[in-house]
């Protein structure tokens, strides 16, 4: 043991010791973050299970019903109000795809295949994906902020104190609305994305609209739509569960609500793209 007075150079930990301490602290922080992420995933899974339970009881019983008014209000908020921005984004996506692909296809003498490539890319991938990303910001963030504000105002506590289930009242309408409306929005996105490609091909590349539509119709098969809409539905589950979970776990006042909103958007985007990668691999393996 050192007998040097406290604060003297020889009593301070050496560089090596401090470096080891820093590595240890960083590892501990990383492990805590990993544990927190695992806990969050578990919490969202449990929330999803609760939602399914409420839906099942609503279908089977009378008293566990989900409010139709609340569901309709959420569908308007999540879906109807997003139509404009989804259409705007998808028009650009269709246009970008057409212009990006044109030089390469032209070099192979296959410019007319633009319709095929745009259709498959939009319907299988970019329609559901971009719609989900737009909805993460438009609906996901607002759901997290709204529920977080309710937590801070003790409204969730008040629901429980009145023997009312917050999952049935708040979460399930938002969950069902997000899943149903994102599928509808994906259909709209597909149509608008293909239209964007068509308009760009006609205006910039001189491709006849009728032949573009004929190529599109030939290229698309049922499984293209099904895979796209299945992905959209799963993205809807992810967005609603992440947003509701983040909202319900808000703490720390207005700052906490802001953090939850930001975290919702980031987590949604990461989850959506990661899930999309998994789906793509599965569909590739099973040739869907």
């Amino acid at each position: 043991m050192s007998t040097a007075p406290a604060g003297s150079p020889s009593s301070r930990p050496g560089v090596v010791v401090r470096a080891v301490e820093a590595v240890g602290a960083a590892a501990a922080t990383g492990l805590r973050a990993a544990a927190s992420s695992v806990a969050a995933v578990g919490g969202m899974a449990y929330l999803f299970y609760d939602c399914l339970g409420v839906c099942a009881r609503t279908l089977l019983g009378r008293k566990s019903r989900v409010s139709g008014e609340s569901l309709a209000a959420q569908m308007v908020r999540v879906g109807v109000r997003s139509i404009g921005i989804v259409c705007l984004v998808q028009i650009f996506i269709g246009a970008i795809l057409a212009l990006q692909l044109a030089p390469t296809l032209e070099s192979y003498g296959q410019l007319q295949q633009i319709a095929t490539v745009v259709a498959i890319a939009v319907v299988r991938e970019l329609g559901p994906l971009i719609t989900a990303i737009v909805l993460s910001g438009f609906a996901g963030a607002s759901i997290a902020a709204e529920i977080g504000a309710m937590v801070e105002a003790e409204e969730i506590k008040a629901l429980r104190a009145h023997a009312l289930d917050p999952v049935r009242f708040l979460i399930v309408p938002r969950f069902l609305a997000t899943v149903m409306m994102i599928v509808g929005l994906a259909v709209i996105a597909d149509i608008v994305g293909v239209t964007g490609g068509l308009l760009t091909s006609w205006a910039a590349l001189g491709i006849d609209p009728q032949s573009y539509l004929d190529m599109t119709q030939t290229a698309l098969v049922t499984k293209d739509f099904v895979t796209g809409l299945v992905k959209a539905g799963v993205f809807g589950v992810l967005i609603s569960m992440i947003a509701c979970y983040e909202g319900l776990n808000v703490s720390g006042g207005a700052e906490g609500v802001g953090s939850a909103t930001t975290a919702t958007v980031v987590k949604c985007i990461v989850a959506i793209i990661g899930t999309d990668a998994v789906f793509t691999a599965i569909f590739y393996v099973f040739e869907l």
Partner: protein
Amino acid sequence: MSDRDVVISVRNVRKCFPSADGSFITVLDDVSFDIHRGETLVIMGGSGDGKSTLLNCLIAEYDVDAGAIFYRTRDMDEPGDIHTMGPRELNAVRKRFGILFQSGALFNSMTVAENVALPLREHSYVDPSIIDIVVTLKLQQVKMLAHRDKMPAQLSGGQKKRAGLARATALDPEILFYDEPSAGLDPVTSCAIDELIIDLTRKLRVTSVVVTHEMDSAFRIADRMVMLGKGRVLKVATRAEFEAIRDADPDVLADPVDRLIHQFINGLNHGPLTDREGMSEFEKLLVGTQTGL
């Protein structure tokens, strides 16, 4: 008093929370007391003494780490510990009590009338026309009938509390909990809320549990009082006994707990509450009591 007169029995309750460094902070430690049917019990203490935590444990919003909280509502043959009940049983108990939260906790997407109607719509099979009559009655009791169609954002703080109280009494509960009912209100409105509490307690024949640190309100409404200090029960006594401590000369109070209570009730800045905190090392240095100066 017989056992059947005890509606809530708190036994050796302990509640801890994790702190940032991984250790645990004990917020409630070995808390025990009874709440008798029909009385108004005031739970008081300073900031951070565990009043809100105790209230959250009483309504089963928080689990307890040790001990039990037994409820015996009129429809229960035997007392039951709310922290070991299943969800169905717990909800049955929750329907027997109402709670007024500090900010009112009204549902912002509903009007005042819809807020009051919600428990009736969800927990009864009563016709909507009857629900409307009950809502009118409840709003009349709290003098909020003129505001029935307003949204919570359009109400003042006092109006939100009145509306919250109407909602809390919607199912004619046996027990009413009040979380800092006078917080954020001017003295006149605070007095009006206190009189409303007294009026409702008498008319509805409920048991009232009020958490507050507003001494004027506490002495206005209490039958008995519980004084918390650093998460422990310092004293459970009648209002008259606390009034005697309040009005006594602190130098003649033999019990150190009574001297502490005297300082708290009278809002004095000299006494056991402030002396026991002591001076920090820096303060001692400033006043020159540190050697080496």
